[in-house]
Each structure stands twice: as structure tokens, then as C-alpha cells.
């Protein structure tokens, strides 16, 4: 059995969320688009998934910046899942699905498969569509 990978840690007392503005939403959307672009331009499934997950988290943050005026800042994606759940449980589930692939790969010490990477891309696209719809309106 592989050793358990360390849980992402936060410095004691560090906040996991922060107030956000509409300008933050635009910046997060821009980041999400850049990461998704990067994911679409490479072939290695590990790299595709890594970029897609970063795109998904940034898009989730963009949605939360508009809908809650808050965003996650812990970098693990877990706070983003929780915050997004307050906006739309389906979007939260999409983000969790993408993050789960990353966790699964880390626990099982295996590379991410092509189908896993494609799934991460799909979830990132769902989140990016939701982010675009909100950010382009504000």
C-alpha cells in the first residue's frame, strides 16, 4: 500500500477565504482561460489534468467573486468546493470531480489516464462557462 500523501496544509491562523471584488472575478476568469488554453495545448495527461484543475479552481473562484463577493485563498481547492456549494451544488460537484482525480492519482501513485484528463477538462469547461456567464454580465 502506498503511503498517504500529505494533506495540503495551511499555516496556522491563515484564512481560507477572502473578500473579493468584481475586478477579482475578471482576473480569476482570465487566469482560468489561460490555464484551460494551456491544458488544451499539451498531450501528457498529467499535465493536461494539472492545468485543467487549476482552470477549474480559478473559474470557481470567479463565480464566487461575483455571486458571494468572496473567494478561496488556501490553494487546495477544497474551500472553493465549499464556497461554490453555496452558489450552485452542480458546479461544486463539477469542481469536486476534477479535484478527486488529482487526489486519486496522488493516493494510488499512478499517472492520470487520458480519460481522467479529459474528464478534468470537461469539468473545467463547465465551470468556465458558468464563470463567463456571470463575469461578462458585470
Amino acid at each position: 500500500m502506498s503511503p498517504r500523501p500529505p494533506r495540503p496544509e495551511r499555516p496556522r491562523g491563515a484564512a481560507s477565504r477572502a473578500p473579493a471584488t468584481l475586478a477579482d472575478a475578471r482576473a480569476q476568469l482570465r487566469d482560468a482561460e489561460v490555464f484551460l488554453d494551456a491544458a488544451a495545448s499539451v498531450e501528457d495527461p498529467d499535465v493536461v489534468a494539472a492545468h485543467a484543475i487549476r482552470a477549474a479552481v480559478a473559474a470557481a473562484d470567479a463565480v464566487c467573486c461575483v455571486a458571494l463577493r468572496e473567494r478561496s485563498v488556501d490553494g487546495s481547492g477544497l474551500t472553493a468546493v465549499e464556497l461554490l456549494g453555496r452558489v450552485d451544488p452542480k458546479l461544486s460537484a463539477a469542481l469536486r470531480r476534477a479535484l478527486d482525480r488529482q487526489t486519486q492519482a496522488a493516493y494510488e501513485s499512478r499517472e492520470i489516464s487520458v480519460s481522467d484528463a479529459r474528464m478534468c477538462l470537461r469539468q473545467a469547461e463547465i465551470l468556465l462557462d458558468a464563470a463567463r456567464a456571470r463575469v461578462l454580465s458585470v
Partner: protein
Amino acid sequence: MNLSAPLADVIPGARGQLLTTLVQLEAPVTVRALARHAEVAPQTALSVVNDLADAGLVFMQRAGQAQLVTLNRSHVLAEPLIELARTRARLIEMLRSELAGWAGLAGAWLFGSAARGGGDRESDLDILLVASTTPEAAAWGDATGRLVNQVQSWTGNQAQLVEHSRGSFALLIRDGNRLIAAIREEGIPLTQGSQSLLRMST
């Protein structure tokens, strides 16, 4: 049109600002937080929110000392308000729809204050158009003239067009022109191939 707050043209003042923010927020917030996000004085916000609650447009619920508010999205007025609040997105859709029919268009972006979510009634809509060959042809001139008239008719604002051929656009990228930096930073692509054009030309 007030490009940063189109709803304010229809419902001016604090009420419009509060309604815009209520439409955007998708979870209950305190009246104080709502006032802060809408940039309205807390007392004014409370007064407007009470009035909107009387009309059934806003749900209010107590959470300890605080009063949480949220838009009643099933109210018959909610959908028209949501549509008004997404005017900017609709304008972008209209621009995309118009430009989708253009022959010889390699790429197009909205940039400047309108792309950043800013601008007011006096602001221009800055649009970068990249022609597949040269933007000198008569049909191109007709199309750009029509676009300028349409933007004026749709918004009351002037369209400011920046036109390039693929070749001159590639030179801008090569030279690290400020326009390219602005497009990369804030540009909203208006055609399918725009982003790949930005990549391929590097």
C-alpha cells in the same frame, strides 16, 4: 448607455445599484454587506431593502443580530431584472452575432473600459478588428460603417474601431505593442478564431 451599470439607466440611484447587486449575489448577505457591495449608505440600503421586501422582491431572514437578504428569484419581476442586469453580456452576444456573419474577418476583440466592466454614457466601445487580408475593400468599409451605426443604435455610445490586417497585427505582436498587451490583459474575444490568431501570430 451607462456601460458599467446599465440597469442604472432604467432604475437610477441607490435602488438600481442595490437591485444590480442583489441580482449578482447568489447567497443571502447582511444588509450591511449588501450596502458595501452596492456602494450605498447602510441606512439607505435598509430603507430600499424594506421597500423591496414589502413588494415581495426580497426575502429577509434573521440570523442572530443580523438581517440576511436575498433576491426572491421566483418573483414575476425577478426575470426582467436579471435580464436588465445582464445587459453587458447581451451586448457582447449581439456584437458576436453581428461579426459572425462578416466575410474576411480573422479576429475581433472588445477592449478598453467596456471590456473591463467600466465606462459610462460618454465612453466609446473600443473594438479591434483584424481583417484576413486588407481592411481596404469596399465591402469591409460597408460592414464597419454598419457596425458603428448598430453600436450607436444599440447603446447610444460611439464605437471606436481599430482596424488591422493579419500582417500588421502580427507586426504589433512582434513589436510588443501596447494594444496587444491590452488585448491580452482585458480583451473579450468576439469571434471564434480570435484567441488562436493571437497565439499563431507570435
